[in-house]
């Protein structure tokens, strides 16, 4: 009997939950919903949330699906997402980019060290840089001229790599968006412009257009890195004036390969952290794309951010899939070597619970802003010192 128990115990240890994950300290926290919206404005799914140097809060949200109109026998897509600015108390300041051409399906917003506001749109496949006054200063990528409605069924990626968890945390519907997922990558687009040709699977064309990009980051020299993303499986690097430099990555699970690149962040030393959601890891590269290391045991990293300052920390969300609030949802805090410091939260609909987190802002390392796809809100999370 004793032996049986012992055997069971060994079995549990060997088959069960990874020991590392079991011993992660739980961090205590509070949360509040501080955004005060005008009566006729409602947040939808929150793609992105970010703060600038003054503490102003920017929210990029899906306020509706794009409207399709018919012209010259082609369906055109308009609107669907909006970018709002609030002050640090949550008071509404203004809308930025209203009715501009590229705001279709909100994915991410980031604010650079000069307080420029960068928006990543999943459907227009564009990265838009607004200056602090809200004027467009630079554009990366190009919106597809028209859409196919209904979209062509996704075709397997060249090379037959498995689509796996593509689009999961990005709000993918039943069964996920799958390989390519490229409704936006319409067949009307010029051949070859939309990636998937002439390179390894998922690499996209070695060019400056994207297929459902997911995030943007900068190194200390101002070079721009775009996570590209749902449709492609690569990181595209540009210099600070937007000239395409190179890209790296292809679809797969080897080091340097990706399965849904969902986020990117760069530390002061030039380490590039890439949330490789489908492979359940964060990969770390140098600024030339050379693989350095990877972090695991943190679920599906779907949203990542780096705190500023001399001692930087990494937050990473193991976001639950939109169709299930009974799994995942916790956010991890790591040091830059990948050591897990703690975790907090779980999936759900109440305050202090998270519904498919799509972005975390951690400009203040103990006051985070968390944007949720599932609960259409931004929570201000205050971590208590443990």
């Amino acid at each position, binding site marked *: 009997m004793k032996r049986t128990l012992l055997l069971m115990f060994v079995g549990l240890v060997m088959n069960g939950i990874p020991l590392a994950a079991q011993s992660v300290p739980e961090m205590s926290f509070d949360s509040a919903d501080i955004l005060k*919206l005008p*009566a*006729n404005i*409602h*947040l*939808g*799914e929150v793609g992105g949330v970010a703060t600038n140097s003054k503490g102003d809060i920017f929210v990029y*949200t*899906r*306020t*509706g*699906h*794009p409207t399709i109109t018919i012209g010259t026998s082609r369906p055109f897509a308009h609107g*669907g997402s909006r970018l709002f600015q609030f002050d640090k108390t949550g008071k509404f300041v203004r809308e930025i980019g209203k009715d501009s051409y590229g705001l*279709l*399906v909100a994915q991410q917003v980031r604010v650079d060290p000069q307080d420029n506001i960068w928006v990543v749109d*999943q*459907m227009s496949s564009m990265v838009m840089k607004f200056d602090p006054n809200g004027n467009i200063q630079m554009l990366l990528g190009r919106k597809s001229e028209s*859409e*196919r*409605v*209904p*979209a062509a*069924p996704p075709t397997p990626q060249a090379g037959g790599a498995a689509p796996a968890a593509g*689009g999961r945390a*990005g*709000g*993918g*519907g*039943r*069964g*996920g*968006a799958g390989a390519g*997922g*490229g*409704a*936006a990558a319409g067949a009307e687009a010029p051949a070859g412009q939309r990636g998937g040709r002439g390179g390894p699977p998922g690499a996209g064309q070695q060019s400056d257009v994207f297929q*459902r990009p997911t995030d943007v980051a900068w190194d200390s020299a101002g070079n721009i890195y775009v996570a590209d993303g749902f449709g492609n499986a690569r990181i595209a690097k540009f210099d600070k004036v937007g000239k395409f430099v190179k890209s790296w990555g292809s679809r797969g699970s080897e080091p340097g390969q990706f399965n849904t690149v969902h986020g990117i962040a760069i530390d002061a030393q030039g380490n590039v952290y890439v949330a490789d959601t489908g492979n359940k890891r964060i990969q770390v590269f140098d600024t030339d794309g050379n693989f350095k290391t990877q972090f695991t045991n943190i679920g599906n990293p779907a949203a990542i951010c780096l705190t500023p300052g001399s001692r930087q920390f990494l937050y990473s969300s193991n976001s639950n899939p*939109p*169709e*299930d*609030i*009974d799994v995942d949802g916790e956010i991890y805090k790591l040091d830059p070597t990948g050591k897990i410091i703690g975790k907090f939260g779980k999936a*759900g*609909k*109440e305050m202090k619970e998270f*519904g498919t987190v799509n972005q975390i802002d951690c400009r203040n390392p103990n006051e985070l802003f968390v944007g949720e796809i*599932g*609960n*259409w809100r931004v929570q201000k999370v205050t971590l208590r010192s443990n």
Partner: protein
Amino acid sequence: MKQCVACCFVFLLWAGSAFGQAKATAQNVPEIPFDSVPNFLKIPAGLYLGEAIGVATNSKGHVFVYTRSANTRLFEFDQNGTYVREIGEGNYGFEFAHSVRVDPQDNVWVVDEGTNLVLKFNPAGRIVMVLGHRPDVIAGAVASPGGPAPPAEKYTFGRPTDVAWDPQGNIFVSDGYVNHRVVKYDKNGRFLKQVGSEKTGTGPGQFNTPHSVAVDAKGMVYVADRGNNRVQVFDNDLNYKTSFMDVGTSWTVCVSPGPHQYFFTSNSNPNGNTPGSWDITGEIYKMELDGTIVGKFGHAGKLVPGFQVVHMLDCRNPNEIIVAEIESWRVQKLMLKQPQATKTSSLR
């Protein structure tokens, strides 16, 4: 050829019943006379209701109308029908209205079958809970797959139809046109249980388009099982109890509050009327909770006080019923009077 014609005929009959058209079998039902309040809703100039899909009142008697106009919109009127405001204008969840209900705390809940969402607005008009998930825009632009529906998931609806709550605040969602089930969540939106599935069926606890749901003060759950021409009743844990089979095709149901609760169900005339269908459908039944019929009122008709495909009832006051109609794009307030003797039946 003859055989083929017969087949076609059979198919037509079947299709007709699938659209929800059945003569009620109840006999000798007293007629409840009523007046329709003239021009109840004062709609501001330039504003038009579209298909009046959902209607509900709050504790102050304010009337909420969830309508399919150029866009799906939610309007609030006061107890006199004076326009108050629009709620949720342009939000991510409004695409194709199906139901609006007001809970005991005066939160306003809408069910949208175009986005597969159930939204809870607090009394101030802000969204405080989202149940379900709108299909991704890119995935959603893909043609609907043919064949049977995929297995029903805990937190994903397939064109949901209605929402209700028990006294503990548990949430019941009827779901719907793609799934055929009723789902129970706790008050924080966590899945507890379901009855039915993604498949249609005619047995107890199976549904063919559960189109509306209501819960009484004891927590009993009443489901308009429209495609099966019946109301099914469940206990609070969604165990089957009984069915009301004699009141035609149940499109929408409600339970009045107070110490003596009544149950109402509408045998709405269908979309797509064949000759004679106005004569056998369109009436609303008032019943005891055990299924005993108290009386019926109303008839199919394009003009007031006729009903043209009643889609929702509000019975917060069981003597003042508010109805929303699909095909006449209007909301009527009905003042019920004492039932008359069953003279028409007894004379026959």
